[in-house]
């Protein structure tokens, strides 16, 4: 009887210690990039992806493209300008801009030109080619494609808090501006609203 009791205690101890140790170890689970996981309620990759997909789908479905193609006989060249973060969160605007660039390029409906910072690096490389590359492989200066439209925008937010509950509202405004005459050819808006409840108790 005593041996049986000792065995049970030993088994329980092992299970408890094992459980504690398991609780202390880091766990990693791989997941699909498009899978949505909200941890803190802050702006995350899902917000960035959903906004860029929906807004680019909207901009590409509007009549400004057909008007431009009919008038100019070529696809419009677009550049992404500054997306201002006016929200209360430190949002990585670069991932958002990256998502939009990907959607625009992959649509096949517009041509896309490099941003000003990227252009600087490419021009530097072209200057280097003039000195060091063979004539057959050299790319000449002054043959860049100029953008016809610039996509600009802002991310704004409103936070309403009561105790442990927050309503987080994000408004993303994008505008497509003609480089030729400053006309706004498209204005898009996407709103995201989240209800975030923080825990009242912890261990």
């Amino acid at each position, binding site marked *: 009887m005593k041996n049986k009791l000792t065995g049970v205690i030993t088994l329980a101890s092992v299970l408890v210690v094992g459980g504690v140790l398991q609780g202390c170890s880091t766990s990693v689970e791989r997941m699909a990039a498009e899978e949505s996981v909200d941890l803190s309620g802050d702006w995350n990759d899902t917000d960035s992806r959903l906004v860029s997909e929906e807004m680019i789908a909207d901009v590409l479905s509007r009549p400004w493209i057909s008007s431009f193609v009919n008038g100019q006989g070529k696809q419009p060249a677009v550049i992404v300008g500054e997306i201002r973060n*006016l929200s*209360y969160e430190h949002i990585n605007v670069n991932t958002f801009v990256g998502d939009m660039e990907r959607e625009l390029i992959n649509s096949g409906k517009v041509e896309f030109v490099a941003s000003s910072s990227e252009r600087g690096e490419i021009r530097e490389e072209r200057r280097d080619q003039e000195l060091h590359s063979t004539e057959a492989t050299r790319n000449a200066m002054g043959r860049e494609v100029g953008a016809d439209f610039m996509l600009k925008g802002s991310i704004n937010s409103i936070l309403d*808090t009561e105790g*442990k509950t927050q309503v987080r509202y994000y408004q993303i405004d994008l505008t497509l501006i003609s480089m030729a005459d400053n006309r706004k050819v498209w204005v898009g808006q996407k709103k995201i609203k989240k209800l975030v409840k*923080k825990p*009242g*108790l*912890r*261990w």
Partner: protein
Amino acid sequence: MRPLLLSAMLISSGCVSMAYIQDPLEQYLISQQPELALAELEQQQYKTRDQTLYHLNKAVLLRMQRKFDESNVELETAKQIITKLEALSLREQATAITVNDAMRSYLPPPFERAMLYSLKIINYLELNDIKGARIETLQLDVFLKQNFEKKEPPFARYLSGLVFEANNELSDALISYRKAYQAYKADNLDVPRQLQTDLLRLTEYQGLADEHQGYLKEFNLKRWTKQAELKPQGELVVIVFNGLAPRKHETAINVQDPSSGQLHRIAIPFYEERSSQVDHFELQNGIDKNSSEAFEQIDEKAYANLTEQMPGIITRAVARVAVKNKLSDNMADKNPLLGVVTNIATFISEQADTRAWYSLPQQILISRMILQPGKHEIDITLKNTANVTVAKKSSKLVALQQQKQFYSWHWPASTATSRRDEHARITYSTTIRHHID
């Protein structure tokens, strides 16, 4: 048994005196050696429940070395930990009732948390990242609204106004300056002259005639810079973090029950008073000379916070006496010696929570100087009350039109001038005895 209990009282008194030993970290801070202070900080063993303090102190030591990016990483880590600690831990509350208050995770009081945001904003400003500073300012606004129904920290609001001005959002800047003004009024403090001129300048610019007239009448200023005069100029804003926040110490009321012989001990924290080496600073560019003004007394915020917390601290301490005595009684019923040992253990474990963010300054001084676009050589001179120079820094800068540049300087040199333990004993002993009776 009684000699044993009396020995415990003496040992415990020894613990109290330990609290007066100066922290090496404080010594390095005062001697302007943030690198050594950081090395000391890394050597000190911070418990998991004190992680917030580790990150907050590290952030100050890094920004003293002008490592603003790294400082912001530490401040953000502290902010994330604090967010988690906002949820109530029943386990920690139970420990606070049975052992002592310092067993709980350190959750900084609101005035320290406002400083967390403020330091992060200043780090961004010194990195010339106005957008980053603006985002942090919006977060600070949410925090202040949530945590201060009245008596907001005026410096936090004034700093917000500076950020909005730097971002050319003059309407928002005026709102923040107005809130800073209201905070000074709520605290019965003098409104700094610089804030007076800011309010006059922006209310006039925005055409708020009634409000402008009200300020004119109240401040009685004959001359202030108009917005049109400021617009083509650059500006330098210098912030000096003067002295060190006062430290908390422990004072205890020890009583022996004459009938049972049991020891009762109630330990409460009290603040020391500090005196800074520097009184003010002067900002010179060869043409103009501006003197600084105090925008915040952090020591006053700390005293006020402890006074506000004291009823809760005493209630928990008294509850602990009851819990610990019950435990000692139960043990004594089983074995008298075990009862005495338990009484001694519970007596010694009664310690006040003296934790706080000690690398904060005692006071924040600010001076602003309008600069014509172009090269300037700037002198910042720290002076004591006798107007004698304590330290001086010179730097060259290029002022740009409509651009604000920010510079901060920590000068922690200060000494503890008196301890308020007698004050704490006298103020709270009646309350404690009333609770015990």
